[in-house]
């Protein structure tokens, strides 16, 4: 009885180890066809079949494997730098040293590539478990609010210097509450203003770290 639910299929496909990839290919071929009927049929071109299969597998790969793939790329780039490009500028006296600046990164790149391949190919079996937040149904959560707050943080980073601490912080706290759905305007303004003032006083006067409170044209220097 072939599993037809997409979740089952995902679970099923994750349970393979490297050696049985090809057996999985022959068994899963027909189920993949149910899921992706429009994928090119490669049964005639034998050499391309495994590649198509891997591509299809990737389409239903879980997030942890996508991350492993990204990390694999990262480690490959890191390893390439460490093994091939880094030592070119090394002075002759440094080359007599038993350890080079690239030695440790070389070891790390091998470790990183191994670990990411283990995760990517699913050599270590692990049960699929849904964490605190099920990322497959990200839309069910307050995704808009989270993205809005992240955007606000970037805006804060860009505005902190030009606008000055008081304005940027007050604005951040006000807009943050606004994004989360608060609509009591007066309370929001008061809370944001008091908090910005108190924090500025603590950081600047008590801890002695200078932060420009006001925009440059209003007299804040730096």
């Amino acid at each position: 009885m072939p599993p037809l639910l997409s979740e089952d299929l995902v679970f099923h496909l994750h349970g393979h180890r490297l050696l049985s990839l090809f057996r999985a290919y022959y068994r899963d071929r027909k189920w993949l066809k149910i899921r992706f009927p429009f994928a090119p049929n490669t049964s005639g071109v034998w050499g391309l079949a495994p590649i198509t299969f891997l591509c299809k597998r990737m389409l239903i790969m879980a997030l942890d494997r996508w991350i492993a793939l990204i990390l694999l790329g990262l480690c490959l780039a890191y390893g390439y730098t460490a093994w091939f490009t880094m030592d070119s500028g090394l002075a002759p006296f440094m080359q007599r040293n038993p350890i080079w600046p690239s030695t440790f990164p070389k070891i790390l790149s091998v470790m990183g590539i191994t670990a990411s391949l283990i995760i990517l190919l699913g050599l270590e079996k692990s049960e699929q478990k849904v964490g605190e937040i099920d990322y497959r149904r990200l839309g069910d959560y307050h995704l808009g609010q989270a993205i809005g707050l992240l955007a606000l943080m970037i805006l804060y980073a860009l505005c902190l210097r030009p606008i000055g601490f008081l304005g940027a912080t007050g604005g951040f706290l006000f807009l943050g509450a606004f994004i989360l759905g608060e609509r009591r305007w007066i309370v929001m303004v008061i809370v944001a203003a008091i908090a910005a003032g108190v924090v500025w006083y603590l950081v600047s006067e008590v801890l002695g770290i200078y932060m420009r409170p006001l925009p440059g044209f209003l007299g804040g220097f730096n």
Partner: protein
Amino acid sequence: MLEGLLIGLQTALSVQMLAMVIGGCLIGTFIGMLPGLGPMSIIAIMIPVAISLGDPAAALILLAGVYYGAIFGGSTSSILLNAPGVAGTVATSFDGYPMAKQGKAGKALTIAAIASFCGGTIGAILLMIFAPMLSSVALLFHSAEYFALMVVGLSAIAAFAGTGQVAKAFMMTTLGLIMATVGEGTLFSLPRFTMGIMDLQTGFGFITLAMAMFALPEALFLVLKPRDNSSGQSSEIKDLRITRAEARAIAPVIGRQSVQGFFIGVLPGAGATIASFLGYAVERNIATKDEQDQFGKGSIKGLAAPETANNAACTGSFVPLLTLGIPGSGTTAILLGALIALNVSPGPRLMIDEPQIFWSVIISMYIGNLVLLILNLPLIPYIAKVLSVPRNYLIPFIMFFTLMGAYIGQNNATELLILVGFGICATALKFADYPLAPLLIGFILGGLLEDNFARSMQLYDGVSFIWERPMTLGLLLIAAFLIVLPSWRARRARIRAAGIADGD
């Protein structure tokens, strides 16, 4: 030891230090009570403040106070709301929350506070006994042994942190080590992997990374999935007293779990979570039949056991930090980062070179526990009001403090962009169930690991130190064993569960 205690008392009993302990405990309790914010986030947020104090002893005392306070606050929220903010207090909610529902919230809090106090205090006494012993052994260590010890610590963390997912934890540790190599290396001070960006010349900021790994994802999770806070608000906190019979019932539990929790805490990677669950399980197994039925329905023993073990383990986790300079948990890793930023290198020489730091931390542990019991417990009904702060105001504040922490450390707005970028990456990693603590520990240990590796390579003119020094070889074998063992055991269990060897 007595001499050391006096040095510690002298340092820790000044007005400033007492204020640090009390302030740290109160701040920790306040923030730790907010569901979803663990001690790691709180300590990460407090680090810039601690570093700008300038005095390492004061900084460490403040941060340790925050740590205890956060754990205490975490158990308060698991008792009152069934919303543990930290993994280490999950076991507390098994019996604490049923007690609160029966209207015995006050009693549950008192038992939790007494259990924490005893666990912490007995843990501190054990720390005082074992730390000097361990550090006198550690003085014999060579840089090759240090290298091997760090490898053991990192692999233990990888093996324990990812429950059943060693590959993921191993990946994260490696990623942390890789990130530590960005910037100017100690060897010849050559910039590495900076991609020509000037801001990366000094490497990634440790505070930025700590914020991005813990505080920001936790805040984002709070945004994405608001917790239901309404359920526990009705339980009023009153009647904080416990009877003599109850005290007699929990006394042996506390005694056993303090010792057990402490030794679990000393092991790298194990920490408070494992200690509390194990403590709960052990006490349930050795309890009498009718007491066993009470577990999970509001048993005082079931509440005292994880609380004691939790706190004793937190104290125990200071042993490897203070004697070897190798953190065994995410929290102690953050403390190590703060100490390095303050120009103190924890290790066996710490007790000789700067005894006032070592002993004042131990004394502040006693004081911190006392403060929690005497000051915090009566204040809990008032502190619990923080739970009614609307989330709409709370979350922007948490985010603002993470931003501020990263900014104060470097005074550089680019750092904030790095923070947000890493925060998004960390959230994605958290979605996919990658453990984040190994990454930070790897990042913090990366520099030290490479230094010691380079030193032993230079001394032995090659990697021969691995087989020429038996202790190094032994430690490295232990490390390899730690990585291989869990996956091997999981594999065997799977084969056994299936009855036959599984084909695919």
